[in-house]
């Protein structure tokens, strides 16, 4: 047996494979379980809205105005006799869709800009000043300005909120990327002659997005709240399309008469935000590097 073969047999065995550790840990995390269940429930409700309620959200029935919650009208009716339950279900579609798209778009842009900024010093200074400028505006004000300029529609809201939340994403990714690019395995790739693009895509990106994913779940929640605020103010989704925000707006004048008009969309917003926060907490706990216990 040659010397080399002694070394060969000597490295020892590997532990048996435990696949999908991350997913398993996520699945057993209490906060994540609850958050995920809530969000899933809301999403399913939104998707299957027509099945859950056979009614038309815009159908007005003058005879059925201001009916309190009952068996026929689960959440009651509004000043036009429209079924609030149906309107809330269809409103969920809008809110969740806006939240999802904003989270994805701002996350994607944040990742791209963040990694580029971390990689190229010259770009970095410019980008960070730009982000600082954007961040100096409160997100709602910024969104107000943009929707005012683009005209009040769901698409404007999405664009506006995406822009408003990009800087935070950039910061998070840039911070991680700056650390990762100094690590030995990136140096190893440089030594082997890897191009900047390869380093950014294969090494820096996959190892910098953990915190971003957590952040995105919170952006999802913020967007739902922001969209509701914008629609409430009248610069977001316009009636008759229902969004949780504009249902509340419509119900404001009748708060004492028909409290259910404001309550149920409000509950929807709270539930969605809560669920997403719990989900985000779970993600953060699982993705954060944990201290190994045994010394």
């Amino acid at each position, binding site marked *: 047996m040659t010397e080399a073969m002694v070394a060969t*047999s*000597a*490295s*020892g*065995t590997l*532990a048996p494979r435990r696949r999908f*550790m991350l997913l398993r*840990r996520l699945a057993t995390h209490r906060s994540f379980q609850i958050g995920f269940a809530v969000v899933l429930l809301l999403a399913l409700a939104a998707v299957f809205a027509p099945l859950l309620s056979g009614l038309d959200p815009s159908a007005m029935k003058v005879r059925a105005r201001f009916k309190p919650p009952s068996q026929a009208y689960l959440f009651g009716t509004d000043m036009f006799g429209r079924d609030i339950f149906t309107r809330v279900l269809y409103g969920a579609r809008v809110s969740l869709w806006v939240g999802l798209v904003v989270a994805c778009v701002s996350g994607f842009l944040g990742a791209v800009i963040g990694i580029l900024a971390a990689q190229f010093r010259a770009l970095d200074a410019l980008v960070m000043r730009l982000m600082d400028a954007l961040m100096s505006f409160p997100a709602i004000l910024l969104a107000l300005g943009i929707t005012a300029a683009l005209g009040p529609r769901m698409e404007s809201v999405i664009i506006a909120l995406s822009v408003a939340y990009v800087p935070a994403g950039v910061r998070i990714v840039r911070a991680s990327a700056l650390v990762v690019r100094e690590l030995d395995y990136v140096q190893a790739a440089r030594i082997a002659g890897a191009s900047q693009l390869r380093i950014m895509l294969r090494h820096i990106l996959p190892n910098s997005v953990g915190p971003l994913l957590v952040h995105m779940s919170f952006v999802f929640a913020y967007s739902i709240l922001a969209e509701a605020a914008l629609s409430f103010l009248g610069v977001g989704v316009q009636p008759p399309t229902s969004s949780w925000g504009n249902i509340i707006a419509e119900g404001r004048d009748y708060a004492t008469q028909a409290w259910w008009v404001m309550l149920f969309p409000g509950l929807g917003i709270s539930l969605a935000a809560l669920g997403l926060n719990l989900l985000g907490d779970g993600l953060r706990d699982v993705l954060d590097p944990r201290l*190994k*216990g*045994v*010394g």
Partner: protein
Amino acid sequence: MTALVSVQDLTVQFRTDRGWITAIEDVSFDIAEGDCLGMVGESGSGKSVTALSMLRLHAKGSSRIVSGRIVHAGQDLLQDEEAELRRIRGRDIAMVFQDPMSSLNPVLTICDQISETLRLHQGLSRPQARLRAIELLDLVRIPDARRRVDEYPHRLSGGMRQRVMIAIAIACRPRLLIADEPTTALDVTIQAQVLELLRELRAELGMAVLLISHDLGVIAEFARRVIVMYAGRIVEEAPVGTLFRAPRHPYTEGLMAAVPALDAGPNDEPLRLQAIPGRIPDPSEPIAGCRFGPRCRHTQASCHAAAPALVSIADGHRLRCTPRSGGSA
């Protein structure tokens, strides 16, 4: 004579994703007054866990003490109230850690950090504590102590910081100083200085020292007695001369053979290190019988059948190896 500290049958477990795993098992040893004990082992051997357990420094939620006692001054430290332990930590038993960079608080001056333990245990006033702190810095041979005492940790080099750590540890004249890899992060020449300091302090203050290290050379030059740990268990304990001249446990032998020799052999032969095959077992790995078995060249049937017990084979020499301690097959 009663030991200063007597660790008896200590078993500690940690919580991980895979459930509770045993970090150390059935660890028993005594430290006498003025003793100089070395504890040597590689990663996963449990030496740091043992040290931290002696002062019950592990987090409550993720670790638990399954069994054992740590007897000091007639009391079991593991059963004591937290308040009682706080009195002992720093005053009777003190500890120095490995990484001087993170052991000192960066926003407090040296004076504040040394004074903290003095004012806590001895009730000194601020001016009194400051004077004593300067004395202590002199004691650990930090030049220009009067000026240095007001500096922040980042202005000091690694070697200096470690001396400050030692000063904090000996401030209240503890009976036992536990030093967990105190020189591992330091340069060789600085390491020699710090070890010499520890030797001198031990002589001057008459305190016992438990020195933990993975470096056999450090242990050989410092300790009077040595405990060898592997995979959470004590595998051998002997006076230092015996251990290095005539080790009995195959792991100890393997370790000695794997350390590259610095002093030349007679012919300056090309050197080939004797590696121990395999790797250190993961604590959660179930191994039947002796935990060193899979890597040992001298196993017999009895080794895999049952875990060997730690037996005394000579005066002051204990061994956990069935074939070599005259154990029956």
